[in-house]
């Protein structure tokens, strides 16, 4: 009896997490209780307002905290997010104007040991890049400084805390960060209310409306509810004109193949790193986790009253549910009320530096093998170790990086921090037409080999990882160090304790 007390603790407490996870999945909301598709209106995340503006800098303050939201009609859901909302507030910035984001972590929960903020798509200094082990614990804050030297693009900021990104991002710790520059602004592309960011993600809901996260699953997490800007299968009222949509896959493990129910082509104008050299037409768009594509859809070709569904044909190894084959619906409600900025030029950004790189400039080729080995998610047979550097490109070097996925059962969206890259080829063939723009995340499909070309122009340590966040949390992550003498990502600008 006396000894059994310890035995009970040793056997029962370890099962607590798995038991909670399993029980919660049993209590998931039945499909019959999910809202009818297209029954709720699309909403847009609010714009973040700077708390201070100087001649050179905008300062934003974001509090990471819990909030409650009516995601499914009639049910309240606990979310974790910047300002307590999901998605968090959108930050809009201009090239050349510094942005400082002060993040205060006030998220008290035993399941939230820490956070770290990554501005995905930005060439941040190492100490502001959201290094996984640069931990922002509850009760602490950190100022992340972004000089905004890059071209206009669709970025997003999200949690990147080591081993906890999955739950944090799943609960809502993600938001858009959009930048503009004069060259992009000079183009007659749709803007204002015709420029619409759309973050797609899936989720599992419990009978009580809670977001269910499966802690025990080390493979992937696939939900049955598709959310767009936090709304389930929404509908959007559109005019008969062109719209610019900024698609982001903000989910953990699910990828999408998007198409219109009319079968007509969409015009892709931008990729992760901003505008493409030239627009590309496609009738279907493969969207891996963390990838962004800017797409123009011309609703002028439809009549008022017509409804166009944005469909999803699941790519391989995405478990289909009866509810996952549609994303949202566009309802054409009127003729255009504003005919300005309604053109897609033939040339968009012909001078993007990474798109002008040539393979002949590279004198180093590195190969990275993404595979499951001994039950673990590995890169070149290794898992994440913040003390180990797996590649050391010289400062300013141009290199070819080859990503290899020998698996037939898994796909891995590979994200390189710091850099934009140009996809050279996929299995020796040209990349898909809509991938021919600057990228920071590339879909590495089953059995595929993808080569990318990039230049390393900032010193320090940066991560590269699979953006299936379940894989990332289970250590499918490596790091490279550009040059020597770069700022240390952990000690250079550590978080500070909140005073109140």
């Amino acid at each position, binding site marked *: 009896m*006396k*000894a*059994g*007390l*310890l*035995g*009970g*603790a*040793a*056997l029962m*407490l*370890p*099962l*607590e*997490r*798995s038991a909670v996870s399993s029980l919660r999945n049993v209590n998931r909301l039945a499909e019959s209780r999910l809202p009818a598709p297209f029954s709720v209106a699309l909403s847009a995340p609010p714009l973040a307002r700077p708390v201070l503006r100087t001649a050179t800098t905008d300062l934003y303050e974001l509090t990471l905290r819990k909030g409650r939201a009516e995601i499914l009609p009639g049910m309240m859901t606990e979310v974790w997010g910047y300002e307590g909302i999901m998605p968090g507030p959108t930050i809009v910035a201009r090239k050349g104007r510094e942005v400082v984001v002060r993040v205060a972590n006030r998220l008290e929960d*035993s399941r939230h*040991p820490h956070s770290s903020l990554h501005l995905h798509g930005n060439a941040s200094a190492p100490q502001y890049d959201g290094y996984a082990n640069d931990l922002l614990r509850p009760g602490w804050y950190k100022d992340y400084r972004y000089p905004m030297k890059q071209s206009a693009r669709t970025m997003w900021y999200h949690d990147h805390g*080591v*081993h906890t990104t999955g739950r944090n991002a799943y609960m809502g710790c993600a938001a858009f960060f959009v930048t503009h520059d004069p060259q992009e602004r000079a183009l007659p592309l749709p803007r204002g209310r015709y420029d619409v960011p759309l973050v797609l993600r899936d989720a599992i809901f419990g009978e009580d409306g809670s977001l269910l996260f499966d*802690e*025990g699953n*080390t493979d992937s997490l696939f939900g049955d509810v598709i959310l767009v800007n936090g709304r389930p299968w929404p509908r959007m009222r559109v005019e008969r004109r062109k719209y610019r949509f900024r698609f982001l896959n903000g989910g953990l493990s699910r990828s999408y193949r998007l198409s219109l129910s009319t079968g007509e082509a969409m015009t892709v104008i931008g990729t992760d790193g901003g505008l493409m050299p030239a627009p590309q037409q496609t009738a279907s768009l493969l969207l891996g986790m963390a990838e962004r594509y800017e797409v123009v859809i011309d609703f002028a070709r439809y009549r008022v009253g017509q409804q166009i569904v944005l469909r999803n044909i699941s790519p391989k190894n995405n478990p289909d549910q009866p509810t996952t084959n549609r994303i949202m619906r566009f309802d054409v409600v009127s003729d255009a009320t504003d005919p300005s900025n309604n053109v897609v030029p033939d040339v968009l950004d012909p001078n993007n530096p990474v798109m002008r790189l040539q393979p002949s400039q590279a004198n180093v080729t590195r190969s990275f093998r993404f595979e499951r*080995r*001994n*039950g*673990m998610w*590995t890169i070149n*047979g*290794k*898992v*994440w*170790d*913040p*003390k*180990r550097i797996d590649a050391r490109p010289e400062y300013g070097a141009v290199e070819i990086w080859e990503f290899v996925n020998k698996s037939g059962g898994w796909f891995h969206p590979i994200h390189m921090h710091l850099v934009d890259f140009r996809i050279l080829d996929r299995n020796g063939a040209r990349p898909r037409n809509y991938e021919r723009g600057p990228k920071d995340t590339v879909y590495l499909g089953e059995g595929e080999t993808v080569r990318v070309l990039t230049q390393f122009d900032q010193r320090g340590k940066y991560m590269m990882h699979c953006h299936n966040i379940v894989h990332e949390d289970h*250590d499918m992550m490596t790091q490279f160090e550009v040059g020597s003498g770069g700022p240390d990502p952990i000690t250079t600008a550590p978080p500070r304790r909140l005073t109140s």
Partner: protein
Amino acid sequence: MDRTSRSAVSPTAAAREGLRIDAPVALSLWAGLVHGWVAPDHFVAAALYGWFFVAVAVAQVGYGLLLLRWRHPAVLVAGVAGNVAVLGVYLLTRTRGIPLGPHAGKVEVAGVLDWSAAVAEVAVVLWLCSALEGRVKAAVVNGLLVLGLVAWGTRLAGLL
């Protein structure tokens, strides 16, 4: 009762009885085999973890073999201490997270295989305790009681 009284016997008595492959031997071997089986996985994560699992596997298999012949009270107490230490690390890694190394803080998820090893270790500890006698037994059991209270207390305090 009869088995208990026969278990904490002198080496010579054990030798008289010959090799005994009974529950504690089998359970200790099982726990050792599990640790040995998963050791290669842990070398992928870090050499430190891999060697830890190899060491535990060797210790548990060695201890099982030791129990085949030698059941001196000191051996039994050492077995309790060793298994409790391994169980403590298990409990920590499934609640607070890995205590050391590059993955410090990462909370592991309990699976069937690791939990079966933990069950075996708990059973070995209970058997070893029951085989002890007198003041040694009282001291060991009271020590386990304190550790059990600490474990549950830290859980209730939200520290585990």
